[in-house]
């Protein structure tokens, strides 16, 4: 399944930012609009790496679909950064 939301939490010493839920699924709109350019990029990549274009597409699709579940949390005494992909 492709990622739908990203949760972003940032706390700085001066300010406590509210946790942001970013709707990644909305990125499908620009991706569809830019699909000819993306396809062209895949074709170029396939030619450079001498690989089947469908293999290139499958690899990038695999990476995209395996992103959900990624969680990065870094905190110090004063600041905190949280990134979660759902």
């Amino acid at each position, binding site marked *: 399944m492709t990622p739908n939301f990203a949760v972003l939490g940032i706390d700085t010493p001066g300010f406590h930012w509210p946790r942001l839920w970013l709707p990644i699924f909305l990125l499908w709109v620009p991706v569809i609009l830019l699909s000819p350019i993306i396809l062209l990029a895949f074709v170029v990549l396939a030619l450079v790496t*001498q690989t089947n274009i469908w293999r290139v597409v499958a*690899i990038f699709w695999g990476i995209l679909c395996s992103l959900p579940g990624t969680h990065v949390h*870094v905190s*110090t*005494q004063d600041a905190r950064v949280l990134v979660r992909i759902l």
Partner: protein
Amino acid sequence: MNENRRQILEMLAAGNISADQAERLIAALGTERTTPVGEYAGSTAGPNGATVKTRAKYLRVLVEADESMTGNKGQTTVNVRVPMQLLRAGVRLASLIPAQAHQQLDDALSRHGVPLTLSQIKPENLEELVDHLEDLTVDVNGSEGNKTKVRVFCE
């Protein structure tokens, strides 16, 4: 009632397993449920007492570093969870490296103390490598007043 527990009791009622085996299986189910977050369940007892390995879903990296390591005030903690599926996909991405670049990469890796020949690594080897990561556990504790801790494990 839990579905797994019901199946075990049905197997016991049908005479497929003994009472001891049923007890072990139910105990294993209980262990699986009570395994705390951050600990890799590893393996559970299956039918006939055989060990059934549970498949890890995430690679976890936990770092607790003190001031002497980071230069920041207070303790710094890093908690990273990467899906194993993402590692597999990333490994497949490595197969897109052009053959012409292999020699340069090999030289660069050798210079940094990693004597690796990329051309000899096949996709199936990389898959195997990721599979074996599931058995990986790294624990590093600082000594002599250094409270830094690093844990790498699969869960």
